[in-house]
């Protein structure tokens, strides 16, 4: 090896963390027994041993002429759609993708739940194939295997929307199935925003420029795309960089804050902040205030639509404030130096900052979300709901371990009277969207 190769070897050994748990023989035996019990062939064949290697007769390659093009295109879509559901073993009944692409690049899945009639299901009725989660609160059940990034799940216009690596998903709350997927930049973890009847996502976020893409919230057809110039470097946290209300989107664009009109699909205003970069933005529930966190850390309050600075407060930390959420009582967020707790700044002033709950722990992180009537804070140890008016914790439910593996629940969004959350555990094939009963204290 040359010097560069040795450096890479050293880097890989240095930076690769220890796994949170080990694989056991019991895990493998359980898997083999279940596969045998279900009469399935293993999804993955082992390479043949040399002594048993036999050459299979080569199949004739069909002549894919022009007449095959539509069928091949449809098959390609199936591969795309099936890929996202590749881990949906055991849940395939409610996440089959059999659709086709739409002009906007949307991957559609037309069959929601063969075992249930999703089209006629009332909101809140979850597929019978949901998998109960042991030692998880509020009757949590796993309803799909799409690993929604915590903090990106939102509800609106009758659907849930969230991002998973590479995709913006539209989820039917009736059965948890992903109805549409559109490809987005895999590195962006900011939540989508619903403005009017459109769902907007940051589909590219680089220091060279950002792209916001709008989709019809029902059909997920792309309806607009706006390129936003970025001044300076974009926020590394890239969590909560997009906010929106009343025909306007707000984007943290490096050292700038950009305002995009969803009526004209143009940047209507963009200004520079000296304390940048701008790390996160949020709008107040009534749409009259815009909050921005900058640097390490300043919280600014602007009036809307005039964008006059109403308040400024600063704390000195070795981190950035991200995942901003605004409620009637103030502003919530995370600090990258201590992301196992969520802070609440009453009135949007950091001078009065308090920490809310200690919801997370090892292998997890807390992200606030405001949905339904409460602010939700998830994690690997507890799921907390708090009052949006004063930050008071209303209910705390512990999250146990499942077969020795830590479980994570967070990024709650309420739809159809039920609470949906990102779920993952360190055990295999246990990640996706969970649905829970909304506790009365949080309802």
């Amino acid at each position: 090896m040359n010097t560069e190769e040795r450096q890479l070897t050293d880097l890989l050994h240095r930076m690769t963390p220890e796994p949170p748990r080990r694989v056991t023989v019991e895990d493998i035996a359980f898997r083999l027994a279940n596969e045998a019990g279900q009469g399935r062939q293993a999804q993955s064949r082992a390479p043949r041993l040399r002594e048993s290697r036999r050459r299979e007769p080569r199949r004739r390659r069909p002549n894919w002429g022009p007449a095959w093009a539509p069928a091949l295109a449809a098959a390609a879509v199936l591969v795309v759609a099936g890929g996202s559901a590749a881990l949906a073993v055991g849940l395939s009944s409610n996440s089959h993708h059999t659709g086709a692409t739409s002009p906007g690049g949307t991957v559609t899945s037309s069959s929601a739940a063969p075992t249930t009639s999703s089209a006629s299901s009332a909101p809140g009725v979850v597929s019978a194939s949901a998998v109960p989660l042991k030692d998880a609160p509020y009757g949590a059940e796993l309803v799909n295997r799409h690993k929604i990034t915590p903090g990106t799940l939102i509800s609106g216009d009758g659907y849930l929307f969230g991002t998973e690596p590479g995709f913006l998903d539209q989820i039917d709350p009736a059965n948890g199935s992903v109805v549409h997927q559109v490809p987005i930049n895999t590195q962006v973890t900011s939540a989508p925003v619903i403005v009017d009847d459109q769902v907007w996502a940051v589909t590219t976020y680089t220091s060279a420029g950002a792209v916001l893409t709008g989709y019809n919230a029902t059909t997920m057809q792309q309806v607009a795309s706006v390129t936003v110039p970025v001044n300076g470097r974009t926020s590394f946290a890239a969590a909560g960089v997009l906010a929106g209300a009343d025909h306007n989107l707000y984007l943290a664009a490096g050292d700038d804050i950009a305002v995009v009109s969803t009526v004209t699909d143009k940047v209507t205003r963009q200004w520079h902040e000296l304390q940048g970069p701008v790390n996160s933005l949020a709008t107040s529930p009534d749409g009259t205030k815009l909050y921005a966190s900058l640097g390490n850390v300043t919280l600014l309050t602007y009036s809307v639509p005039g964008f006059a600075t109403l308040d400024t407060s600063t704390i000195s930390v070795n981190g950035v404030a991200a995942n901003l959420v605004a409620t009637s009582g103030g502003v919530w967020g995370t600090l990258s130096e201590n992301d196992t707790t969520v802070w609440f700044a009453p009135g949007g002033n950091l001078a009065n900052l308090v920490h809310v709950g200690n919801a997370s722990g090892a292998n997890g992180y807390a992200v606030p979300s405001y949905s339904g009537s409460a602010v939700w804070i998830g994690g690997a140890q507890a799921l907390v709901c708090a009052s949006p008016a004063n930050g008071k914790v209303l209910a705390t439910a512990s999250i146990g371990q499942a077969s020795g593996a830590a479980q994570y629940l967070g990024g709650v969004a309420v739809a159809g009277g039920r609470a949906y959350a990102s779920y993952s555990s360190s055990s295999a094939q246990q990640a996706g969207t969970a649905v829970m009963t909304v506790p009365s204290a949080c309802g």
Partner: protein
Amino acid sequence: MDTLPGVTRPAEPDGFRDFVEARSPALLRSGWLLTGDWPSAEDLVQTALAAAWPRWSSLERPDAPELYVRKIMVNTFLRWRQRRWNGEIATGRLPETQAYGDVFAQVDARQALLAALDRLPARQRAVVVLRYFADQTEAQTAAAMGCSVGAVKSHGAKALARLRDAPGLAELLTGGVAS
């Protein structure tokens, strides 16, 4: 542990338990580098071990079962990558400034590493993991991936060139963040 009704647990081959207990952390770390997250890494390792179990007693090289398991892992990973949509969209959202020496810089550096690995084609990523993390020889890597030694060298060189140019990784390669 529960199994399905009427299904018996398969017989455990000799030496399998010792191997799993001793080597699963290392295999999981390789899986993490290949897939980028722990649940997928664990799925990958379990898939490979489940496939190896029935053949454990007749391994071509009983003294080197790890080579066989890693071979299954990397081929399973390549198959998964073929099935899944892989929109390799360039992005600049990579760490550009870091405060070295604290745990958050460590997290940031890991994200930079995974982001850089994400930008590699699957076979280049596999070579990086087998050759430079699992410390396999070029011949062993070639055998695992079913390609020539020359192809391994080529994939390795291209991967190094891409990683060298990946934002945020150059300083890590020269020893930026303490573990």
